[in-house]
């Protein structure tokens, strides 16, 4: 892997260590707020929720995206990565920031959940830790963009390989979207935490956080989509249906991911209804790259299936090599993406959202999409990379068992969770009195959901155990990592599909049109700031 082997391995190792830490916390939360357990001290519950969310939202996916990005950079560009010291520094910043934030949480000084909506206020160390981790990831952004530009300069007129093109799109997306939460922390929260300001404007803080909150989901999603395009067709034994379609999808994700975040604030009073509608429309546009991807992937898989002898309308589906972890994970991921996407349409619809707003439906939705459809692809990516990074093969049957158990666990967790949300259970509560006749019908669903949490714990243990046990095996020769070839690989590409300059300007312009006024209005608002509410005694 062009000398990046240790770097990528360190990222994936750290990422899965984080996962192994955070998943049991999630299962414990599901248990203690279910009727299967007595109530616990809410402070302990919120410590666990904050640790679970901060780890799995900020640290784990960032580490996977960074590690996979380095692997893509080395393999797709076919030359050793430069700036390795910077890359290691970036990893240490992310891990140091994570440690700083999580130790603050563990000390009970930051029970603010990973969204840390003001006026809730945690110890400054928590925010500094998150900021440190984000700053670390910016070094990765810079490295990706730098390598992209260098390669393009050295290969004038040639198409940048799709894998690197998509990774750079993800890096740019993250750079732009993390500015929202970054400015919220730097300009609003930290001055208050340090005692420099006496009050904080929750409306402005929420608008700034929404700038990050939805695009971050697409940043989490990017490695999964990249794997769909550049790893899956080859693992299935076929070719990518269209290289250009992939580029268009990634450009659309870059453009449409960010000017849509206000759909998280549909019931917030500080934003006008017109802007909420505007963001709802643009949120709808995000379905386009997703549908393009599903079309391209299905077409690529059909090519593979037919090459393998599949016949008839659906015979090619059965002919696919489902024993391949990448193929199996992609199939399971697409199923969860379909279910979760349908729920997402309800969340993003200005009117329908009101029926599920702030209920468990929302939590169930993002667990199904991120924890299910996306994270299962992280596993598949790890199964592709791990043997090449360590030189040690992984047991095929156990990999499939792990993927199936993750899929089953996630469905057992999230489907009843959606139902409970539709029954009106609010999210973010530490306990519910199921002896109350109004809540009693929810009890069975919550209990079921809690059982799924422990299936996910077992699946996580299986994953980590498998990766660790691989070191006891002998080193064997592993085929090098290769990315899928398109049926018709582009020999040259128009500027619009081979670079980001104009698109980044478009992203900035849409930020101004969709966010400019609400932010300016919140900045100009007088009398909307309140005293912060410190957590953790």
């Amino acid at each position, binding site marked *: 892997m062009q000398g990046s082997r240790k770097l990528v391995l360190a990222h994936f190792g750290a990422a899965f260590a984080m996962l192994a830490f955070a998943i049991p916390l999630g299962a414990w939360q599901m248990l203690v707020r279910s009727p299967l357990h007595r109530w616990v001290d809410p402070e302990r519950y919120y410590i666990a929720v904050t640790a679970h969310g901060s780890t799995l939202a900020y640290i784990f996916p960032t580490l996977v995206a960074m590690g996979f990005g380095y692997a893509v950079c080395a393999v797709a560009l076919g030359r050793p990565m430069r700036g390795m010291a910077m890359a290691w520094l970036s990893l240490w910043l992310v891990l140091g920031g994570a440690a700083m934030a999580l130790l603050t949480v563990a000390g009970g000084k930051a029970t603010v959940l990973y969204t840390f909506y003001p006026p809730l206020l945690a110890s400054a160390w928590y925010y500094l830790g998150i900021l440190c981790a984000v700053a670390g990831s910016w070094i990765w952004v810079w490295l990706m963009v730098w390598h992209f530009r260098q390669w393009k300069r050295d290969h004038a007129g040639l198409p940048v390989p799709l894998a690197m093109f998509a990774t750079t799109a993800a890096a740019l997306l993250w750079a732009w979207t993390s500015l929202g939460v970054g400015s919220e922390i730097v300009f609003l929260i930290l001055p208050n935490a340090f005692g420099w300001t006496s009050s904080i404007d929750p409306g402005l803080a929420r608008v700034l956080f929404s700038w990050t909150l939805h695009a971050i989901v697409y940043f989490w999603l990017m490695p999964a989509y990249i794997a769909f395009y550049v790893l899956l067709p080859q693992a299935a034994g076929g070719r990518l249906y269209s290289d250009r379609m992939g580029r268009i999808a990634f450009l659309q994700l870059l453009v449409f991911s960010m000017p849509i975040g206000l759909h998280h604030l549909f019931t917030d009073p500080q934003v006008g209804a017109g802007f909420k509608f505007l963001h709802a429309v643009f949120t709808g*546009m995000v379905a386009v790259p997703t549908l393009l991807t599903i079309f391209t992937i299905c077409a690529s898989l059909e090519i593979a299936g037919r090459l393998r002898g599949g016949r008839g309308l659906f015979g090619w589906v059965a002919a696919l090599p489902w024993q391949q972890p990448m193929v199996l994970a992609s199939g399971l991921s697409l199923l969860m993406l379909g279910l979760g996407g349908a729920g997402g349409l309800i969340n993003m619809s200005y009117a329908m959202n009101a029926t599920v707003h702030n209920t468990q439906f929302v939590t169930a939705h993002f667990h199904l999409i991120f924890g299910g459809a996306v994270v299962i692809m992280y596993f598949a990516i790890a199964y592709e990379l791990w043997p090449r990074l360590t030189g040690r093969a992984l047991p095929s049957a156990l990999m499939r068992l792990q993927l199936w158990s993750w899929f089953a666990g996630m469905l057992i967790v999230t489907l009843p969770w959606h139902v409970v949300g539709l029954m*009106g259970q609010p999210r973010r509560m530490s306990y519910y009195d199921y002896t109350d006749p109004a809540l009693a019908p929810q009890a069975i669903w919550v209990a079921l959901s809690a059982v799924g949490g422990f299936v996910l714990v077992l699946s996580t243990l299986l994953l980590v155990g498998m990766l660790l046990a691989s070191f006891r095996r002998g080193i064997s020769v592993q085929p090098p990592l290769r990315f899928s070839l398109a049926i018709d690989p582009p020999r040259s590409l128009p500027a*619009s*599909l081979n670079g980001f300059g104009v698109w980044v300007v478009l992203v900035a312009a849409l930020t101004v049109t969709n966010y400019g006024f609400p932010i300016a209005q919140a900045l100009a608002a007088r009398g909307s700031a309140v005293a912060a509410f410190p957590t953790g005694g």
Partner: protein
Amino acid sequence: MTTGSRPPPRDRRFAVWIGSIAALLVAATAAGFVWLPAVQAGRDGPGLWDAICSAIGLPSRDARAAAVAGAEPPSNVAWTAATQQLLAGANPGRGAALAAASCNGCHGPAGVSDDAIFPNLAGQSRASIYKQLQDFKSGRRDPAVMGGYVAALSDRDLSDLAAHYAALPVPGTARGQGQAQQAPVDAATLRLVDHGDPMRGIAACAACHGPMGFTAAAPRLEGQQRAYLEVQLEALASGARHNDIGAQMRGIARQLTAREISGLAAYYAAAPAGETDSRSKSTRTK
């Protein structure tokens, strides 16, 4: 292998895509800021310009100013520190002397009324009695009967009266106990008391009137006169009584059916006063 040196032909995709996104932006803006507000403005709505301003997030200043100018506060009583100090320092003995002069005629010397249309006052919270007396005096609550009695009384007089009645032993333990144990309460009424009906915006009675929670000046209801409770809920529903701050009770009473009002009045009239949790399980029926 490739023709890397030749510059690619002019790329029309930029224009097409940016044009499409700009068109989408214009269409969504037109729909979100003009068309939908126009539809929602309606015939009796806020008017088109105000609706557009509202969509942008700028409620029309003129409309708001007019609304504020025309609005009357529902009550002149505010729960400031001064009000609370006045109540805390009130003299029940002096209040008893004032009460003997006129109040006892209707509300009873022990604060328990003979006529179901007059409320029992014994054991009622100071804040609740004080607020109603002030509202009668200021006319925020219909002063037709009570206005004449309180017009000449000072703030101190009113607070002393409140302290006097609050100090009287709660009524009905002898009268109500037997009834309460026997009176069957239907599940729908109990549900309103304990849980309200969120789909109709009805908060649980017990959340403000106890025992789950007590908010400032929310009166104790257990052992109150049944007819009085019915009349007041109906008056709140019709808006004839409108001295509840933030229209809290009007909003709830409007949602209640006549049957529910009757059920709630019967429930609270029969509930034994004096116990914090008056709803013993034995009175519940399904």
